[in-house]
């Protein structure tokens, strides 16, 4: 019997169909992987060329590495300033949206509040309508309360817009945690906030870190919102700075690509470092959704 299985495997392994199948399988997988990587390679290789070389040898690797394009873009393109802006807005957005989502997600999951269903559906509405549904009046609201022209014009709306997904996600997470621990902590004399802060929040660590990476990516790459609300040049986040830079230096590809590299490298590094968390968060949201 065992020998029979072995021969069958042997035959299967060395039949031409098996190899043709494997070649097709890996061929397709590798082609789509190259499709993803090669354009990113072009960005970096172009950033290291001179303008002349770009026209003569657009697709190949650079002959000599012109690293000076990066400091030039950093200074001429004011990417240093825009980088700081992006950091200044992203950190409060992430803290605010993850913090408030955790609180509200916990409140909706663990207290039998009258109207909690309605509140939850109200938040879900925010997942269904696009930003465009609110962007026009929001501009005038932000103007009236004096946020336009400050970092707040991006921070506060981004927190509010991050809440629907955040609450949806954290509520599901807290619903999945065991009740006994919280009850035990209560008997030991913890009040409700202590239970949340010392018991439940540490247990929700994986959910919180997924959501943090997720919201950070959203804040860092956010485009339409700052395009409308952060028109002042000194306030522009990196992505917007890159767009205006590109329209000013249309023909200077090395500088534009150096700028694009400055924008994409931090997010790629964060993605690669935290990808397990990030993809977990994404798929948990997607599949439970």
């Amino acid at each position: 019997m065992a020998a029979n299985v072995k021969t069958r495997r042997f035959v299967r392994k060395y039949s031409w169909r098996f190899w043709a199948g494997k070649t097709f399988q890996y061929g397709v997988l590798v082609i789509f992987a190259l499709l993803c990587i090669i354009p990113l390679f072009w960005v970096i290789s172009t950033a290291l060329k001179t303008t002349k070389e770009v026209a003569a040898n657009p697709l190949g690797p650079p002959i000599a590495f012109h690293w000076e394009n990066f400091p030039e873009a950093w200074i001429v393109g004011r990417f240093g300033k825009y980088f700081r802006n992006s950091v200044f807005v992203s950190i409060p957005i992430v803290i605010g949206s993850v913090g408030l989502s955790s609180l509200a997600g916990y409140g909706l999951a663990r207290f039998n509040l009258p109207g909690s269903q309605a509140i939850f559906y109200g938040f879900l509405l925010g997942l269904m309508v696009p930003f465009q549904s609110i962007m026009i009046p929001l501009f005038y609201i932000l103007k009236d309360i004096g946020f336009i022209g400050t970092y707040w014009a991006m921070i506060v709306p981004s927190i509010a817009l991050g809440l629907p997904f955040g609450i949806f996600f954290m509520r599901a997470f807290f619903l999945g945690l065991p009740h006994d621990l919280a009850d035990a902590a209560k008997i030991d004399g913890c009040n409700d906030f202590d239970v949340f802060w010392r018991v439940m929040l540490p247990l929700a660590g994986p959910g919180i870190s997924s959501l943090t990476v997720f919201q950070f990516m959203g804040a860092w790459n956010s485009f339409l919102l700052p395009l409308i609300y952060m028109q002042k040049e000194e306030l522009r986040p990196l992505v917007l700075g890159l767009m205006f830079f590109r329209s000013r230096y249309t023909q200077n590809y090395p500088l534009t690509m150096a700028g694009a590299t400055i924008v994409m490298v931090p997010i790629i590094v964060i993605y690669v470092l935290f990808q397990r968390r990030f993809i977990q968060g994404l798929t948990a949201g997607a599949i439970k959704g």
Partner: protein
Amino acid sequence: MSARAAALSRGAGIAALRRAVSKVAVGYAFVVPALALYVFFVIYPFISSIYYSLTSWDGAQPVKVFVGLANYRRLLSDPLVGQSLLHNLIWVIMGTISPIVIGLLLGVLLWTGARGMVAFRTIYFLPVVLSEVVIAIIWNWIYHPLFGAANELLRFIGLGNLARGWLGDPNWALPALIIAAIWSYYGFCFVVIMAGLQNVSVELVEAATIDGANPWQRFIYVIVPELRHVLTMITAFTLIGGFNVFGIVFVMTQGGPGTATQVIATYTYRKAFQESEVGYGAALSMVMTVLSLIASYVFIRLRERGE
């Protein structure tokens, strides 16, 4: 209620009621900060949007003149709206089917026993984390009329006479944008489909194999039905994304050449923020709202029927 409870058993009743009330108050204390922010910065502007769409406001006048449904009547007769919606429709059809098919193909190929799952996943997802502006810069470069990769490739395979300035050609600009969008998105479809595939039972597929199903039949009759939840979710998500697409179009072509790539989101932006037709812009934004709500509603219904 409180009077009756109190009358029934004075001390204990009041204490229990107090505990219940304080429990509810604590619960609300967790929810209220988020709710307040959400109501003020999302719900209130959402309702205002509906109101704005019924006015002829230009963003500057002190009063907003109520004009009823005039903006919506104008929508129906505005040829640019029809054209933009047609572009969105093309975008939604091409931009939904292709990345899902690619994601499904890659997912199934990896699922049926290829090595290097984590490496492939990392690579496929890279374009998804990029900003729309970076994607636009990359693809503007690929479509460059003189030395872009698209033309170089055509010349290389002997089809040099097809080379053109892709984004400057009214017939090709929209498909060119959609290809860029597909590139930036199939990794997302792949990751979600892959997660769905983890829940497909291997026994089921093996049983089908024993029953004589060929790989294609196994794919269509076993794997796809098992993935239906994930596929409806991702379809709804992609449809909504396609109706509201903005960044790539705005950065790459600004809706041009002429109006060849104008979509509803770029048209709305132009009206509301560049031409100061705030009321009309709000009506246009309502079109996107309604389309997104319809897509969400269909998704929820399909989901409920599946369960």
